[in-house]
């Protein structure tokens, strides 16, 4: 009896599988384990993670590492993926000409137009002139209300801007009902003496006048030329509960369309396309270029910088010089990113158009042989590099009950989406496509405007719920979940992610419905699209219908909704598609490691 270990080094996890081979050639699987990959895939630091995973797997069957007869490493696919995001429009508002945000409790309702004046200067006010008064937080709500009440009989005070969160408190003490906007952080930046329009929406609605260019024109009496200039302001105020727009004579508001640049596909044909044509047209251009040799961006433009960044990043990782790194595939996705408006008074954001790009680089052969040498030196076990990753994965996938040849596997990892088709005659066709889990995380992060990538990763991975009382939460599918013990008040009212064993609070105040929409959308945009792209590539005659079985393997196949999404999308083509169940026990994990052990039998003959 011989003990054989298969080791698969992936971008994020290292998986091992242990099998025993009898003299008569029968194979039994004994154990498996998975650990985080240490270091970049295909480099020497991987050895640490491999050893840990091997020890864990051997521990399970109570055998020492030294009883292994052979370790088989995968020939990792020499592709590395990376992602980048670039906004292609930009709103610049100079001279602080607007406030538009969502304070939790503004007061009053309606709109008004008046001249801006600070509370301390209100004694200078003239009767007959409408005023909008700005109040700093150094005045208490009682003092502010008292001072205003004193002047209200003689002055026309028609609106109020507060720095503190005290709109309701001031309103309750005021002798006149006027719209009040509060929580304006940088109130000192308000230009005194300028005309401004203020609007507070009725509860449950958003503002109507100031989010409409003609509404602003009506209130501030703008010329057609000026109206065109305030359009970006109106656009960025859509959906807000309260707003102030200030008329500045040479008010410089522009929406810049950044020189997004062109992208050139060097393939069988050379095709050039401008980034601002959107993701769909970029991808069409990619197809029309045929087999890609390299992809370049126009120098000194956003896309040019973006691709250069990816290229240099990859060069660092792979140790090749920048010129040797060739980008062989990209996946472009349209998105919207909330970007803080430059010159904002209360941290306003504007949804800017952006393109997210995942790129993939084919590198030189990864130094797997060095890893093998180090392992056999350290463990005194014969180690060899055996078999191409995709072939091994197909072999492993065949252990899923209910599969048969020809079989296609779809391996959706962090950096790339790989597909392989194993035909009955033993031939294998493979492809690697840019764009997978990391691009999804990036899309979630930018579209929701999240501080940290970690939160985006977690949103991608876990279902969520909203804590509605200290004893129950409403889950994203509408179901309720009750608790015996009260939930920690820190979670109250928040959207939480249901990670195994703990709840993770989302700091940002975003409705659950919105998070759900963004999450599903990002997964659709990346995974469904890439799955079809990759499978079409390996399918006989590029006809998807000629693939009978698709087995999903790899990390993203463990996701709680991606396999269902793919099943739905592929059902159209009459393909049997589902999450793999390697060896009938392992789920979608461990396909490559299992395949490596199986291939030992073949190599013996």
């Amino acid at each position: 009896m011989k003990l054989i270990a298969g080791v698969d080094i992936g971008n994020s996890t290292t998986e091992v599988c242990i099998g025993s081979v009898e003299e008569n050639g029968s194979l039994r699987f004994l154990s498996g384990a998975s650990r985080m990959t240490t270091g970049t895939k295909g480099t020497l630091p991987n050895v640490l993670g491999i050893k840990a995973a091997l020890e864990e797997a051997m521990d399970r069957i109570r055998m020492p590492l030294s009883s292994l007869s052979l370790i088989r490493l995968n020939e990792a696919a020499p592709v590395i993926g990376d992602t980048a995001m670039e906004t292609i429009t930009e709103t610049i508002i100079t001279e602080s000409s607007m406030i538009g945000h969502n304070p939790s409790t503004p007061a009053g309702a309606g709109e008004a137009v008046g001249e801006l004046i600070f509370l301390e200067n209100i004694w200078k006010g003239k009767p007959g002139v409408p005023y909008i008064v700005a109040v700093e937080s150094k005045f208490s709500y009682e003092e502010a209300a008292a001072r205003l009440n004193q002047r209200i009989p003689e002055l026309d005070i028609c609106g109020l801007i507060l720095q503190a969160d005290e709109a309701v408190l001031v309103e309750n003490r005021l002798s006149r009902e006027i719209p009040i906007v509060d929580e304006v952080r940088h109130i000192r930046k308000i230009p005194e003496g300028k005309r401004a329009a203020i609007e507070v929406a009725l509860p449950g609605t958003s503002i109507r006048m100031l989010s409409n260019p003609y509404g602003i024109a009506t209130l501030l009496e703008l010329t057609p030329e000026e109206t065109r200039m305030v359009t970006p302001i109106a656009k960025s105020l859509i959906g807000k509960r309260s707003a102030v727009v200030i008329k500045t004579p040479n008010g410089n508001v522009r929406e810049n369309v950044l020189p997004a640049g062109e992208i050139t596909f060097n393939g069988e044909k050379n095709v050039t396309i401008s980034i601002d044509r959107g993701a769909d047209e970029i991808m069409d251009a990619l197809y029309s270029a045929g087999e890609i040799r390299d992809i370049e961006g126009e120098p000194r433009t956003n896309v040019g910088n973006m691709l250069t960044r990816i290229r240099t990043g990859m060069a660092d990782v792979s140790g090749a010089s920048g010129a040797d790194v060739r980008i062989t595939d990209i996946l472009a996705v349209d998105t919207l990113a909330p970007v803080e408006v430059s010159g904002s008074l209360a941290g306003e954001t504007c949804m800017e158009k952006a393109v997210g790009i995942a790129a993939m680089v084919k590198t030189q052969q990864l130094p797997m042989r060095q890893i093998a040498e180090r392992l056999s030196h350290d463990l005194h076990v014969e180690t060899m590099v055996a078999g191409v990753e995709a072939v091994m994965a197909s072999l492993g996938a065949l252990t899923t009950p209910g599969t048969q040849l020809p079989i296609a596997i779809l391996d959706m990892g962090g950096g790339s989406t790989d597909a392989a088709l194993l035909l009955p005659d033993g031939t294998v066709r493979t492809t690697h496509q840019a764009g997978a889990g990391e691009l999804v995380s990036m899309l979630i992060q930018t579209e929701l405007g999240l501080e940290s990538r970690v939160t985006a990763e977690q949103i991608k991975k876990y279902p969520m719920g909203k804590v509605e009382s200290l004893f129950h939460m409403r889950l994203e599918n509408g179901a309720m979940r009750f608790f015996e013990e009260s939930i920690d008040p820190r979670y109250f009212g928040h959207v939480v992610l249901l990670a195994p064993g703990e709840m993770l609070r989302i700091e940002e105040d975003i409705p659950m419905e919105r998070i759900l929409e963004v999450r599903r959308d990002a997964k659709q945009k990346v995974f469904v699209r890439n799955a079809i792209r990759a499978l079409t590539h390996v399918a006989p005659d590029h006809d998807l219908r000629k693939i009978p079985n698709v087995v999903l393997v790899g990390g993203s196949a463990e996701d709680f909704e991606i396999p269902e999404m793919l099943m739905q999308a592929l059902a159209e083509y009459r393909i049997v598609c589902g999450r793999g169940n390697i060896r009938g026990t392992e789920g979608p994990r461990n396909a490559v490691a299992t395949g490596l052990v199986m291939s030992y039998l073949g190599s013996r003959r």
Partner: protein
Amino acid sequence: MVVSKPAIIIYTSDPDPDLLREICAGIEEEGVLYQISSHEGDLDTLAYEAAAESMLGSGIGLCGQRAAMMMQRLPKGKNVFELDHPRFRACRNLGANSARAIKKMPFKPVTGESES
């Protein structure tokens, strides 16, 4: 028959008037009604009974310079928030939170650096 209004109940025992004012301001800014009455007992009792008495299920106890916020059906002594000699800002947020508990909105921070 005693008809109670939908309000947050505040039970006090020898309260610090400044802290009480700030707590009330916090509730008022959130647009919820409140009722103040003096009551016998320690801080936990005040908060617990205030929450039990409130039709909205949210109550506050204020005992000298110590304040606690409580929600109905939580066991006595397990106050949601508890403050000892707090700053005004913390009191304001404590009041706001008693209202937010009813509105099912996330709480404002009442302790630590980020309470402003």
